[in-house]
C-alpha cells in the first residue's frame, strides 16, 4: 500500500541535530481517577471516603504547570479521632488473626497494586513532579516487593517472632517531600505483624489516598489502613489519641526534635527518620566514571529526597570534577511525566530551599557549577555542584538540600573518616574504591545506618534501612523493621503518665545538701569510698556525700555525691575506653564477662547476706548468658537481583548511660550492664538510689578485671545525674528506670542529640524473670543495626 499522509515536518531537522524530543506519558487515567472523586479528595477511613463538611481545603496543583488538579480537605481533630477509632476497632480482629491470613491479605494488596500500577505511577509523578521513570521502574515494583516480603514475614510470625506481640495502632506522619514509597516501607511491616495504621498524609498528596482506596476495595479488614489528609502540625493530635501506641515520623531534623519534645511523657513510642542528606566517599582507587554515576543516582535521578555530600580524594580531585561536570552536561531536567528526563521539578518550596543554599554558599566563598538541559521556566532547578566551600562556614554544617552536591577534598582515608563521621548526620553513605581492604575498612568505620560499597541508593525489602545519630534510629525493612512494631508479649499498653507541670528547666537541677546523719552501722568491709570512674574510685567533684539507709532505716553508710563534672569525667573515660572495647572480639568480651561472673560468685556469701534471694546467683547467670549471646551477632542477607551479600551488622551504640532502678540493686544493675557490655558498649551507670553499695562492690572486681573506663559508676542524686546524662550531647543512648517524671524528662531532653532512649515510665519490671530481666528486648536495644552492601563482580 502507498504511504499515507501522516507526515513528520520536523524529521529533517531532527535528523541533523539528533536531539531528544518530548516523550510524554499520558496522565489521562490519573485525571479520570480524580474525576471519580469530583476533583475533591477527602480522607480514606475504614474502607470509605470520608468527606466531612466545613473543613478548609487546599489545592492540589501540578507542580510544573500550576494547574489545579483537585482540592484536598484539611483534617480537624475529630477526623483524626474517627480514623484512630476505626483503626482500634480493626485491631481487635486483625491482631488476633493467624499470620497466614494477614499474609494472604498483603499478597492480595500487592496484586491490587499490580492491576492499577499505571494509575499509581502517573498520579504520583503528576502530583509530585518526580520523573515517571523512577516511579514506574523502581517505586511501584518495590512497593509490591515490600508487600510480598512482609507477607512472608507474617506467614512465619508465630514461629519466628514468638514472644512478641503487635503494639497496636500506629500513627504515621509523612511530610510533603516524601514519596508514597516511604509510607509503604513503614506500613507493610506494621500491618504484617498485626498492627493497624493511621497515616497523616500531607494535604495534596493523592497517591497515598489511592493506595488506601485500593486496600479498602479488597473488602475485608477495611479499617487496618486509614489516611487522614492534614498538616504535620496535627501530629501531636494524632499522637494524643487514646489507643495510639507508637508514632513513626519521617521528615526534617528540627521537626523531629520538636515532636520528640512535644510527645515526652505521653507514654508512646516514637521513632524518627530524619533528614535526607547522603554521603559519597570517592577514593583514588575508585572507578571514577562509575562513582560519577553514583553521584547521579544519589542526587540527580529523582531517587532520593535530599542532597549529597561528596568527599573526593585530593589526588583524583581534578579528574573527578572534569568527569562530573561533563556528566552533568548530559542530564535532562523537565516535566516528570516525560519518559526521558532524569529529574523533574519538586515544587516551589524545594526550589527556593536550593536557591537559598546556593546563594549562601556563594556568599561564603564557594564555587557553583550548574549544567544540564533545563527548561528555562521557573519550577525547575538545575543539577548543581558546589565546591570550595570553607569547611568552617555555616553552609558546610547545614544539611545539603536537593538537588545539590557539595564536594570537598580529603587527603587520606583516615581524614575522610574523620570528616564523614564528624557530622551529626548518620543516614546513608557509599564508598567507592576498588581496593577491597580499604573499601571494607571505610565501610565498617563509617558511622552510618547504611553503607554501599561501589554503589549508591540500592534498596531491598529484606535489608534494614535506617540511621544513627541525628538521622534518627528507626528502621524499616528486614527483621529490624518488624521489631519497630512489636513489643514483648505482656508489656502493659500505653498509660498516659504525662505530668503537665513538670518543669524541664529545674528538674534535677539542684542537689539537696546532705549532712552527717549519725553513726554508720554498715559492715567494716564496705567498698572503697568514691565514684568508680576510669577504672578507679575517685572522690566526687563536689566533695560531699549522701547517706544510705538500710532496710530498717538506720544509717548504713555514705556514698559519694556525684555531680555534673563527675558525669563529664565518666563520659570522657567511657569514650576513651570505647575503641579498645569495640575492637575486642565477641569471644574476648564473653571471656571477660565470664571472669566477672566468677568474681561475683566468690562474693556470693558476702552479698547474699544482705540482698534479695537468688539475686547474686541470677546475676552470675546473666553475665554468662550475655557473653554467650554476643557471639551470635549480625548475619548475611541475600538480596534479589544483587550478586553479593548484604551484611546486617550489629554495632555498639557507643557510650551508653544507664540509670538503674531502685529495686533489685544488684540484679537489675548486672542485668542491664551485661547486655550493654556484651554488645560492645562502654557504660556510665547510676546505681540504685536506695541501695548503691552492691553495685560499688561489683566495681571492685571490675577494677581488676576489665579495661579502665569501660564501666563507670556514679552515685548521687538520681534526678540530678539523670539530668546531666540526658542533656549530655556525647552520650549516645540512655536507659532510664525510675520515676514517671524522670522518664518524661529523659524523653524531652533526648531531643538534643536525638539519642535513643528507653524509659520505664515509672513501671516496675520483673528483673528476676528471664522475659523481662534477660529477654531479647535488651539485646535489641543494646546495639544498633547497620546494613553494609557488598555487590560483587570481577
Amino acid at each position, binding site marked *: 500500500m502507498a*504511504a499515507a499522509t501522516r507526515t513528520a515536518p520536523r*524529521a529533517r531537522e*531532527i535528523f541533523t541535530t*539528533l536531539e531528544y*524530543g518530548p*516523550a510524554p506519558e499520558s496522565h489521562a487515567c490519573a485525571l479520570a481517577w480524580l474525576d471519580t472523586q469530583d476533583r475533591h479528595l477527602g480522607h480514606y477511613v475504614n474502607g470509605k471516603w470520608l468527606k466531612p463538611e466545613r473543613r478548609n481545603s487546599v489545592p492540589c496543583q501540578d507542580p510544573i504547570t500550576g494547574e489545579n488538579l483537585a482540592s484536598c480537605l484539611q483534617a480537624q481533630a475529630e477526623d483524626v479521632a474517627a480514623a484512630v477509632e476505626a483503626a482500634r476497632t480493626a485491631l481487635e480482629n486483625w491482631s488476633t488473626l493467624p499470620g497466614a491470613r494477614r499474609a494472604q491479605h498483603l499478597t492480595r494488596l500487592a496484586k491490587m497494586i499490580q492491576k492499577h500500577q499505571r494509575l499509581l505511577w502517573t498520579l504520583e509523578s503528576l502530583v509530585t513532579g518526580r520523573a515517571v521513570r523512577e516511579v514506574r521502574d523502581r517505586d511501584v515494583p518495590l512497593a509490591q516487593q515490600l508487600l510480598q516480603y512482609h507477607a512472608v514475614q507474617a506467614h512465619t510470625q508465630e514461629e519466628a517472632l514468638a514472644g512478641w506481640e503487635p503494639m497496636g495502632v500506629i500513627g504515621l506522619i509523612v511530610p510533603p517531600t516524601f514519596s508514597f514509597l516511604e509510607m509503604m516501607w513503614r506500613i507493610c511491616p506494621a500491618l504484617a505483624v498485626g498492627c493497624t495504621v493511621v497515616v497523616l498524609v500531607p494535604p495534596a498528596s493523592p497517591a497515598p489516598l489511592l493506595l488506601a482506596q485500593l486496600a479498602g476495595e479488597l473488602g475485608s479488614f477495611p479499617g487496618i489502613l486509614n489516611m487522614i489528609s492534614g498538616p504535620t502540625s496535627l501530629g501531636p493530635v494524632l499522637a494524643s489519641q487514646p489507643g495510639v501506641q507508637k508514632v513513626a515520623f519521617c521528615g526534617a531534623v528540627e521537626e523531629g526534635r520538636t515532636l520528640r519534645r512535644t510527645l515526652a511523657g505521653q507514654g508512646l513510642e516514637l521513632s524518627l527518620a530524619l533528614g535526607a542528606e547522603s554521603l559519597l566517599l570517592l577514593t583514588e582507587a575508585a572507578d571514577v566514571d*562509575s562513582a560519577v554515576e553514583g553521584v547521579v543516582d544519589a542526587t540527580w535521578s529523582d531517587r532520593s529526597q535530599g542532597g549529597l555530600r561528596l568527599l573526593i580524594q585530593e589526588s583524583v580531585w581534578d579528574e573527578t570534577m*572534569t568527569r562530573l561536570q561533563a556528566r552533568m552536561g548530559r542530564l535532562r531536567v523537565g516535566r516528570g511525566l516525560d519518559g*526521558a528526563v*532524569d529529574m523533574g521539578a519538586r515544587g516551589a518550596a524545594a526550589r527556593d530551599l536550593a536557591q537559598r543554599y546556593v546563594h549562601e554558599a556563594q556568599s561564603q566563598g564557594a564555587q557553583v557549577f550548574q549544567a544540564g538541559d533545563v527548561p528555562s521556566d521557573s519550577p525547575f532547578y538545575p543539577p548543581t555542584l558546589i565546591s570550595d566551600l570553607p569547611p568552617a562556614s555555616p553552609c558546610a554544617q547545614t544539611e545539603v538540600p536537593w538537588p545539590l552536591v557539595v564536594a570537598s577534598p580529603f587527603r587520606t582515608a583516615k581524614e575522610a573518616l574523620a570528616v564523614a563521621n564528624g557530622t551529626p548526620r548518620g543516614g546513608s553513605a557509599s564508598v567507592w574504591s576498588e581496593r577491597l581492604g580499604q573499601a571494607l575498612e571505610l565501610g565498617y568505620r563509617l558511622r552510618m545506618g547504611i553503607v554501599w560499597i561501589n554503589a549508591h541508593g540500592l534498596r531491598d525489602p529484606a535489608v534494614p534501612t535506617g540511621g544513627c545519630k541525628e538521622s534518627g534510629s528507626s528502621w524499616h525493612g528486614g527483621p529490624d523493621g518488624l521489631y519497630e512494631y512489636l513489643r514483648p508479649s505482656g508489656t502493659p499498653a500505653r498509660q498516659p503518665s504525662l505530668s503537665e507541670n513538670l518543669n524541664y528547666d529545674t528538674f534535677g537541677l539542684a542537689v539537696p545538701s546532705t549532712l552527717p546523719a549519725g553513726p554508720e552501722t554498715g559492715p567494716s568491709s564496705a567498698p572503697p569510698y568514691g565514684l568508680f570512674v576510669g577504672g578507679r574510685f575517685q572522690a566526687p567533684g563536689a566533695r560531699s556525700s549522701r547517706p544510705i539507709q538500710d532496710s530498717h532505716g538506720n544509717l548504713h553508710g555514705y556514698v559519694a555525691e556525684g555531680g555534673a563534672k563527675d558525669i563529664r569525667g565518666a563520659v570522657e573515660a567511657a569514650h576513651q575506653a570505647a575503641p579498645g572495647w569495640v575492637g575486642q572480639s565477641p569471644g574476648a568480651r564473653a571471656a571477660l564477662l565470664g571472669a566477672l561472673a566468677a568474681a561475683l560468685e566468690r562474693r556470693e556469701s558476702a552479698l547474699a547476706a544482705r540482698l534479695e534471694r537468688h539475686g547474686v546467683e541470677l546475676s552470675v547467670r546473666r553475665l554468662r548468658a550475655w557473653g554467650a549471646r554476643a557471639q551470635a551477632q549480625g548475619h548475611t542477607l541475600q538480596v534479589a537481583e544483587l550478586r553479593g551479600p548484604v551484611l546486617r551488622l550489629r554495632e555498639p551504640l557507643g557510650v551508653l548511660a544507664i540509670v538503674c532502678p531502685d529495686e533489685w540493686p544488684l540484679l537489675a544493675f548486672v542485668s542491664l550492664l551485661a547486655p550493654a557490655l556484651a554488645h560492645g558498649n562502654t557504660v556510665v551507670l547510676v546505681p540504685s538510689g536506695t541501695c548503691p553499695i552492691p553495685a560499688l562492690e561489683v566495681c571492685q572486681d571490675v577494677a581488676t578485671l576489665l579495661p579502665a573506663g569501660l564501666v563507670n559508676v556514679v552515685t548521687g542524686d538520681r534526678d540530678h545525674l539523670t539530668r546531666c546524662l540526658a542533656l549530655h550531647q556525647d552520650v549516645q543512648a540512655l536507659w532510664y528506670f525510675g520515676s514517671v517524671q524522670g522518664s518524661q524528662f529523659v524523653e524531652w531532653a533526648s531531643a538534643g542529640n536525638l539519642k535513643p532512649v528507653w524509659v520505664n515510665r515509672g513501671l516496675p519490671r520483673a528483673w528476676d524473670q528471664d522475659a523481662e530481666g534477660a529477654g531479647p528486648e535488651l539485646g535489641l536495644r543494646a546495639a544498633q543495626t547497620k546494613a553494609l552492601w557488598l555487590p560483587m563482580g570481577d
Partner: protein
Amino acid sequence: MAAHNLGTELDLSWISKVQVNHPAVLRRAQQVQARRTVKKEWQAAWLLKAVTFIDLTTLSGDDTSSNVQRLCYKAKYPIREDLLKALNMHDKDITTAAVCVYPARVCDAVRALKAAGCNIPVASVATGFPAGQTHLKTRLEEIRLAVEDGATEIDVVINRSLVLTGQWEGSDFIKTSTGKETVNATFPVAIVMLRAIRDFFWKTGNKIGFKPAGGIRSAKDALAWLSLIKEELGDEWLKPELFRIGASTLLSDIERQIYHHVTGRYAAYHDLPMS
C-alpha cells in the same frame, strides 16, 4: 573515515590505572537504556540516522555474488522511497554507511555498487576472520588483496593471544566483537570501551571510532545504541566516521518501524523489499 590515529608513545601506566567496577557498569548499562526514549518524529529521524551508521553485513559461508548484489542494492536504497518522501527525507541521500563482506566477496560488492551508481564504501573483514589465529604473513596478504579488490575499510581481527598477554595494538576504530562469538555487542562492554575512547580523546585529542557488532537486530536496540553514544561520548561521535553498527537484519526492522510511523499500520512481510 576520520583522520588516522597517529598513535602515542605506548604508556602502559594508562592501562594499569584503569579501574572498572563490574556491578556498577552493569547498573549503568541497565539505566542508560531505561532513562532515554525517543518517540514520534524524533524516533523516525533517529532511526533514519541509525540507517546511515549501518555496516550492512553478510558474512555467511554460502555468500555468492547474487546475494551480495542484493545486499548492495539494499545499501543504496535502504528505505522505501515513498516512506522517505512522506518524511520529506527523500533528497537526503540516505544510504547505509558501508557494506561489509568476506574478502573473497569484495570484488562482487565493488562491482554491484558501481552498477548501482553509488560510492558506498566496501568494508571487508580480514586477517583470518573471525578467530584471527593465522600467520601474520597470510593475514597481511589477506588485507593487501582485499584492498587491491577495492575494499576501503578493513575490520581487522586483533591477535587476542597478544592482548591476553598484555601486548596491545593501536587502531582507528574499535569493534566490540566479530559478531561470531557467543556473546557479542553488549552494553556493559560497550560502556567500558566508550569510556576508554573518551579518555584517549581527552589525553591525546584523537577521536577513535566505535563499532558494535552482533546481536543488534531491532530498531529499539539501535535507538538504545545511539543514545548510549550520545550519553557517553556526545553528539560529535554520532557520525559514520566515528560510529558504525555492524548488522544484517537490523535494517529491515528499522524500515518496518518507519513504515508504521508513516502509515500508522503494521507492515506485512511482503510490504517491504528483502535485502
